[in-house]
């Protein structure tokens, strides 16, 4: 099934409402045609100078059609928009439900650049499907069928002819216009993509271009590409322009051909002369009504891209499949044991042969340079990524547990805590039923309570995109409070102090380790200074366990860990020295060896 059809199925839950809107709109269009037809009849009849009374009915009808057209159109707009908005909500829910199954691992490819933003816009764009494509087309079909049928009854030849023109207007013209547009877009796409890549590269490299005095090279090159874009568009404009003349051509065809058939019919007396005006003018009005269809053909073209991208999301494979008969985890805190675990992102193997045991209530640190697979390990434990080998909570394999059940037992505090665009209280509740008292208690533990008390609206302060901006440290404390209001026995700290400066990071670490005492904890970090609280350490490099042991053992070992620790300490020593220098003034450098270095 085509992406557009799927989009329509997702949006067309309000069938009755949509049908009503189509009918109202069809009647409105019919009124427009009937108005001119009746008026033509009225004048033709009047030209035979009958008693004025015989014209009264026609005169009343003309005015009625005039009113009917305006009011029916108004009603159609209201009903149609209401149905379209309902459909949009339905579509949003469906897309969300799909994304929910993909998150977080399967979302990866949508979060690059502005793709996510674009997806949201694509969903919004779907509003065009009922409003600018389906409804106009349905109405046009309705009014065409009725008009053609009437003319066929009056004069079969004219009916047949107009039928042909209507098919041209309803189907052939939109198809041709759609095809030329698509052709032009296909021709332009590579040049436009080239231009876009220059623009994006230039904007990101703006500092480098300015610093090296090379802006002019870029603008010259952009100009050259842009010239070819313009040249191509200008050449294509001859084909694209047919949209402008189509309606007039069809109108001319309908009117002139009708005259060719109808005039001999009048002359030979097959129809009364009074009908000639009606037969000649009805096509004029009908084609006016159909003139909006090329516009909906273009809307259709535009929507195709959106529909394809939405379908792309809907068709993304699940990163993990919940078991059919999930095992239930017990309520008691359990030990974690991994043996020979390996995992990969799409085709790239990231972890292999990982084994360790972590007794409930103890603390394990996983360290290593960035890209060594630390976060992948966390994703496997959270049930977000499938793995080979074995990872067990107690004696139950993680892959046999339902995702939601698993995450009742294990949670993660990550680098980027998402702050939702709502109040502080709601950011902690996340829709769970939690007493305000419990929120304050969690905030106390996260050492954020004083800060919240200092805000004018306290827990009701708006944060997030549209609200107050909060610092990275506060955001992480908020995330900690979020966890503490409904804690899980096992918690993974995935570099929660990344992106924070060292003082803030140290404060936060202290708070976290205090608040999380007694939890089974896995600390993932590349900073070693805070590790004295870990019972055991494993060092990951290139996805494998490189070293393991206690902090003391590893420090004495002379491996990566020891090297890194020495380098961190050296940094600390230099910075201790620097902290004694005056601020904002040049000072001679201390050309002396550092203590302990």
């Amino acid at each position, binding site marked *: 099934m085509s992406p557009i059809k799927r989009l329509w199925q997702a949006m067309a839950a309000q069938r009755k409402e949509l049908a009503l809107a189509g009918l109202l709109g069809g009647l409105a269009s019919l009124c427009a045609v009937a108005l001119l037809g009746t008026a033509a009849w009225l004048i033709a009849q009047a030209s035979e100078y009958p008693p004025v009374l015989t014209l009264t009915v026609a005169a009343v009808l003309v005015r009625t059609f005039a009113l009917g057209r305006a009011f029916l159109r108004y009603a159609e707009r209201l009903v149609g928009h209401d149905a379209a908005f309902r459909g949009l909500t339905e579509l949003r829910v469906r897309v969300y439900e799909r994304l929910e199954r993909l998150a977080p691992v399967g979302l990866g490819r949508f979060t690059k650049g502005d793709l996510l933003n674009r997806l949201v816009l694509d969903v919004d764009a779907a509003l065009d499907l009922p409003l600018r494509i389906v409804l106009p087309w349905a109405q046009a079909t309705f009014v065409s069928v009725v008009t053609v049928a009437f003319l066929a009854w009056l004069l079969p030849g004219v009916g047949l002819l107009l039928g042909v023109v209507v098919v041209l207007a309803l189907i052939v013209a939109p198809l041709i216009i759609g095809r030329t547009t698509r052709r032009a877009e296909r021709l332009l796409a590579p040049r436009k993509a080239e231009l876009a890549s220059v623009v994006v590269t230039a904007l990101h490299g703006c500092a480098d271009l300015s610093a090296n005095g090379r802006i002019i090279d870029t603008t010259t090159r952009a100009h050259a590409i842009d010239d070819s874009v313009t040249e191509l568009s200008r050449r294509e404009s001859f084909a694209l322009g047919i949209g*402008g003349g189509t309606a007039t051509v069809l109108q001319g065809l309908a009117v002139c051909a009708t005259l060719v058939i109808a005039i*001999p019919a009048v002359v030979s007396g097959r129809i009364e002369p009074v009908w*000639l005006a009606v037969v000649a003018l009805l096509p004029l009005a009908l084609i006016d009504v159909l003139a909006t269809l090329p516009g909906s053909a273009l809307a259709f073209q535009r929507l195709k891209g959106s529909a394809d991208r939405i379908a792309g999301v809907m068709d993304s494979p699940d990163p993990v499949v919940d078991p059919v008969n999930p095992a239930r985890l017990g309520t008691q805190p359990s030990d974690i044991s991994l043996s020979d675990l390996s995992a990969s992102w799409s085709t790239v193997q990231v972890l292999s042969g990982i084994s360790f045991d972590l007794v409930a209530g103890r603390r394990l640190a996983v360290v290593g340079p960035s890209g060594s697979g630390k976060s992948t390990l966390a994703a496997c434990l959270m049930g977000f990524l499938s793995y080979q080998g074995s990872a067990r909570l107690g004696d139950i394999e993680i892959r046999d547990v339902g995702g939601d059940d698993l995450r009742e037992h294990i949670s993660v505090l990550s680098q980027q805590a998402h702050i939702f665009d709502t109040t502080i209280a709601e950011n902690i509740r996340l829709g769970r039923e939690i007493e305000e008292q419990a929120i304050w208690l969690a905030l106390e533990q996260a050492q954020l309570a004083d800060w919240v008390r200092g805000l004018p609206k306290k827990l009701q302060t708006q944060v997030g995109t549209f609200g107050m901006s909060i610092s990275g440290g506060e955001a992480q404390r908020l995330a900690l409070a979020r966890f503490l209001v409904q804690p899980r026995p096992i918690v993974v700290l995935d570099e929660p102090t990344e992106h924070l400066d060292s003082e803030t990071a140290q404060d936060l670490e202290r708070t976290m380790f205090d608040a999380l005492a007694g939890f089974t904890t896995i600390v993932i970090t590349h900073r070693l200074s805070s590790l004295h609280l870990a019972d055991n350490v494993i060092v990951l490099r290139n996805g494998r366990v490189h070293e393991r042991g206690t902090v003391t053992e590893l420090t004495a070992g002379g491996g990566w860990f020891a090297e890194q620790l020495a380098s961190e300490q050296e940094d600390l020593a230099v910075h201790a020295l620097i902290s004694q220098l005056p601020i904002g003034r040049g000072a*001679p450098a201390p050309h002396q060896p550092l203590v302990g270095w």
Partner: protein
Amino acid sequence: MKPLDPRLLRYARSTRGFIILTVVLGVFTAILIITQARLLSSVIVNVTADGMGWAEIAPAVLVLTGVFALRALLAWAAEVAAFRSSAKAKQELREATLAHVLELGPLGPAGSDPGEVATLITRGVDALDGYYARYLPQLVLAVIVPIAILVTMIGQDLLSTLIVAITIPLIPLFMVLIGLYTRSSVDRQWQTLAQLSGHFLDLIAGLPTLKIFGRSKAQAEAIRAIGDRYRSTTMGVLRVSFLSSLALELLATLSVALVAVSVGLRLAEQQMSYSVALFILILAPEAYLPLRLVGQHFHAAAEGLGAADRMFTLLETPAPIAGTRTDIPAGLALEVADLQIRYPERASDALAPTTFIAQPGTVTALVGRSGGGKTSLLAALMGFLAPTAGQVRLTNALAGGCEPINLAELDQAAWRARIGWVPQRAHLIGAGSDPTVTIAGAVRLGQSSASDEQIWSALTEAGVAAEIRELPGQLETPIHADFGGLSVGQLQRIALARALVRSPQFLFLDEPTAALDGMSEVAVVRAVQAAAQRGCVVIIVAHRPALILIADQIVRIGADGVKITLATASNGAPNTTAITGAGW
């Protein structure tokens, strides 16, 4: 929304010719519409009232066919002209915006929101097609056609002319009145719509968090509830704002009906001729048609003008004023005197007042916690931003030399030509911003005329030449490859070579060893020392001990302040953290 933004004529000059052409085509179209009505009515009257046969009437039908064909041709020409000038105008706007944004530098819009600006320049401007191809021509027709029809009708029937003449001006009037009445609510509506999309985006971005806390499934209901609430408020607004189109349709159709009935009744009372009556009946709807179509294309036009408006805002952002002096003697020291930087609308300094002199042949290390203003200071030295207070001067190192030169007096290009600059994360691109660039191309950004030997010698000095010699492609190796490309450390040293190949008088480095291992760090340290020995003024933002310890002078930049990020993106192959970073 103004129907025609004068700035469009200024920035997209090709628009002027287009408008003139549109007016000319509009006049011809109006004449053809009237001719067509005349012919059609007389054909009908001749056959029915005058009893003409097919042979007599055939020529008139043929002419009528010709008129239709001519109208279609004009409509096609108008559309072609619209697409052509739209293409030209879009190019003019795109190029002007790109050049100006780059001119504004990395701390301008290019740095703060490169994605948004790029979208605006590439896709956003395409929305102008609707404005050029549909709205503008219809707007011209909406003025010309009713006037032409009214002028024609005066000579035929005064009463019908009066009905049309009174109602036509009412249509734009009603549209404006109702538009004014509903504008605030429509604006509010757009805000709600933006918020609704924002809410959806917020939920998707927060999905990993929701899932961790087992709250993700419950949010589907929240989306439905909010969507429903939005729908009912929107419909409330639409009920009113659709009134404007109701008024428009009502006026147009009712006046046509009034004209029809009135001519019909007068015809029956023999007060007018059949041919005039029919002529007016055919003509009257044509007077309203362009106005109705303008209303239909309003939305497409608003979108295009909105994009143009955002571009004009960018184009009208003033560029920092730069000096004109181009002669910069050799051997100058760089003096920073009470330099202070504060960004607009910020409460605290990005850089608290700072003073030091960097002599030629020495290394100055800028140290201090992140957010202290080190990068801002370098940006001021580069001329990317103007200091809030204080000065940067070039002074003669030997006493009694030339007058100090204030940085603000200097021509920016001449100044930067003396600088070798290595940012925290360099963006290695070709001069034409070609995203696919070789090592040689990336280094030549620093010095376009550099020979291969000069590039090798710069790479050698940066301590990366040996590694590049081992690559199969040597200097022609592409910088960016999805897998198995150059390492971050290699890229950083290529960026250093790019600075060194300029034989700079001043060398500014921002944490050049942040991503380097021990060996590469040593190479960079050596290169820095060599540059200083050649008499360079070297200023380094430094975190790591290796660089701090070779400095002749240390400046501690310490005030708390806002952190800035220059427009840079990471180079090199995507790694797994980039993938996981997406999730959480």
